[in-house]
């Protein structure tokens, strides 16, 4: 085969490959677009956005109801922690009062307090994991170290904080970086059944407030 023939053959192969890849990419992009459109249509059918928008009071009530539940849990945890931290002992722990106070506390709950609840009761000796993400949405690099409290039961039982393992404990986030934090709780074999809460925090100015809630049961 002469150089010219080799060159022509190479060009033919290149052209054939280019045409094929281009055709394949077009098909892929069409299908991805079709998939996105279909998903949006389903979402529109399943969640009637217009209907929700037409009744803003109902929407607001739903948000309030969800927030109340979250705030209740948050305050339960906070109350438990207050038993451990003496300078918070004066907080009002009355359940009814909490309901009344909830709108006031909503800002606290919305401004950084995350409530993570184990989705099923765990037995002594078992492990349960909690996860959340940190997103650096400013233009700064953030360094923080997460701290943990003991788990305090509603009946004053305690699980030592060493049962909690935070991974990673020290975090450095660059702008727009998201980092997942995993907290593993190995429930001690001698743990007493109770509803436990723990508090995961970081020092200011990058305040992180996470409440962990878990039910330990022998059943």
């Amino acid at each position, binding site marked *: 085969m002469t150089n010219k023939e080799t060159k022509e053959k190479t060009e033919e192969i290149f052209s054939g490959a280019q045409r094929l890849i281009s055709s394949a990419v077009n098909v892929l992009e069409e299908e991805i677009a079709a*998939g996105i459109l279909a998903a949006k249509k389903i979402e529109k059918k399943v969640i009637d956005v217009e209907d929700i928008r037409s009744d803003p009071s109902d929407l607001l009530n739903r948000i309030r109801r969800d927030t109340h539940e979250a705030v209740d849990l948050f305050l339960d945890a906070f109350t438990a922690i207050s038993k451990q931290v003496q300078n918070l002992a004066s907080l009002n722990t009355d359940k009814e009062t909490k309901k009344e106070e909830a709108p006031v506390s909503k800002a606290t709950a919305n401004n950084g307090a995350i409530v993570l609840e184990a989705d099923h009761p765990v037995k002594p000796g078992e492990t*349960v994991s*909690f996860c959340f993400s940190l997103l650096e949405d400013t233009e700064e690099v953030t360094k923080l170290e997460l701290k943990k409290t003991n788990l305090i039961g509603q009946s004053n039982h305690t699980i030592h904080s060493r049962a909690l393992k935070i991974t990673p404990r020290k975090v450095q986030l660059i702008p727009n970086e*998201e980092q*997942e934090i995993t907290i593993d709780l190995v429930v001690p074999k001698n743990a007493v059944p109770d509803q436990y809460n723990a508090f995961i925090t970081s020092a200011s100015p990058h305040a992180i407030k996470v409440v962990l809630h878990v039910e330990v049961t022998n059943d």
Partner: protein
Amino acid sequence: MSNSLMKSMLAEYGAATLEGINKYIPDKEPRKYLYDLVADYPNRGGKGFRPGLCIAACKAYGGKQSDAMDSAICLELLHNAFLVHDDIEDESFFRRNKPTLHEANNSAIAINVGDAMQVLSLSPLYRNREILGDRVATKVYLEVQRMILESVEGQAMELGWRKDNMCDLKEADYLRMILKKTCWYTCMQPLRIGAIIGTRGQIDPDTFDRLGYFMGTSFQIQDDILNLVGEEDKYGKEVCGDIIEGKRTLMLIHLLGNCKPAEFRDVRSFLANPIKDRSIEDARSILELMHQYDSIEQAKKTAQYLAGGALKEFYSIFSKCHETQDKALIENIILYMINREY
């Protein structure tokens, strides 16, 4: 990396996945017509391609094998569930050198076994929450949901073509069908899921779409070629079986688009018959025509071009990853496709 190391890594990941699958199969009755049969196809020994890609992508992005195991188990269980149902839909006789499940039992039992495998694949998916956390596990769940939908849509396309005896299909139709039927669940989702796990959800999984698509299409075309020119013992399915089943392969589409009108009518008439009435002699005649019109050579080139496209995508995506055996494994799978001899 040598091909033998590539095969041994795939075998290792496949074996770990199989061990996991066996753990998820309930040890209880009914065994004879359900749980023993659930274990049948996975234990016949496949290539371990899907779990291999998933685990390798996870590790290439810094994750641990154990983090990806449940997802790999889910993918392999679903793959085998698809095979059980596909074999019934395609009226296939052999799978991995043994009678297909419905041939060895009956279609009703095989359908039920396939259903059970699909349900069992949910367990490892659910368990992901404990290992990966809610956020990453939810991402993996959504990937699997999408993968199943794409696959059944692709299967519907091909079954529809066969039912309507479509004979005027083009290359782009094939590329679309194979994208949906094969690529999502063979390459795209295993890579996407592995990378999601390896990066703890930090990566945009769409990054892998072209790579997985080119790989998957090349893989499927080569598999279809082997059905025509491979040795039955090595291939594990009846040779020319795809022609008898009327499968719209790239070679058949090429032949129908290039043969003479009289030949076109003969092939169309063959495909219009019920599968049981299609003879092996007629199938071999069609294979001869495919050779005559260079349909197989063209398909080999197409597979090679696509594998080349996959390699380019691979270098562009994985250049950011450290040099690891798992990164080399993915690269070698693509190189193997490019250099494949039949």
